[in-house]
């Protein structure tokens, strides 16, 4: 069950990244295509919802199940997978949650007629995948830290 939870956490994180990229691309053309405004609002809400789901699922897994993985990592050859990567990930993700929550607020303005409002959405939508991909990479290193820790255990 906890593996499903962890995969769902990653799935919703990736969904948030993809939705933010969609918002970015749609916002680039929102001046020439006013009809996209409604779509941008819906997809930005989806990005925020996906991020909240990823955050709650990942947070639950971290608080309830991570202690066993942490012990394996710290005894293995990649202790930095916890001491640097997990420690930074668990705190950078709070910023990502705030950015994703803010995206639909920024997208609620009249994007078709206002270049400055579009610029704001573009900046926020661009920061989410950049930070999100960095955090996904951190997650991959943490998973590898567990793997090499388990492989290093005597059989």
């Amino acid at each position, binding site marked *: 069950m906890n593996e499903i939870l962890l995969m769902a956490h990653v799935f919703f994180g990736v969904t948030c990244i993809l939705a933010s990229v969609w918002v970015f691309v749609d916002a680039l053309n929102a001046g020439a295509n006013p009809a996209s405004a409604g779509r941008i609002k819906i997809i930005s809400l989806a990005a925020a919802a996906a991020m909240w789901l990823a*955050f709650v699922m990942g*947070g639950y897994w*971290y*608080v309830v199940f991570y202690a066993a993985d942490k012990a394996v990592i710290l005894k293995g050859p990649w202790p930095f997978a916890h*001491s*640097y990567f997990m*420690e*930074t990930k*668990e*705190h*950078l993700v*709070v*910023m990502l*949650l*705030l*950015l994703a*929550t*803010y995206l639909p*607020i*920024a997208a*609620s*303005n*009249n994007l078709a007629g*206002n*270049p*400055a*409002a579009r*610029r*704001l959405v573009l*900046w*926020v939508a661009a*920061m989410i995948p950049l*930070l999100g991909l960095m955090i996904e990479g951190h997650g991959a290193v943490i998973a590898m830290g567990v793997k090499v820790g388990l492989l290093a255990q005597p059989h």
Partner: protein
Amino acid sequence: MENKIVSKYTLSFGLSLAICSVVNALLVIAKEKSPALQTAMNKMTGHHWITHSAVIIVLFLALGFLLAQGKGDQGDSAAVNRLIKFITAGILLSGALIIGFYLIAD
């Protein structure tokens, strides 16, 4: 004419986002450097990370609504450009503080 182009909540929650990002990083450093603070945060919710996240989320919402009370109805183009710089600076500073702390100081 390009004035009054974003809502007061866009400005207030944008400011709140930038401020809370930096507070997030400072709280990381404070709890890692102060075992007493981390113990207190553990006791509050059972895990310091839950307390940490809750503090930042509540602060984000509270500041977003509070700062909106002091604003006019909407912001103009210059205010939006300043907001973009403020948010970007807040995110970059916070990221640098968190990464730098765990890379160097911790």
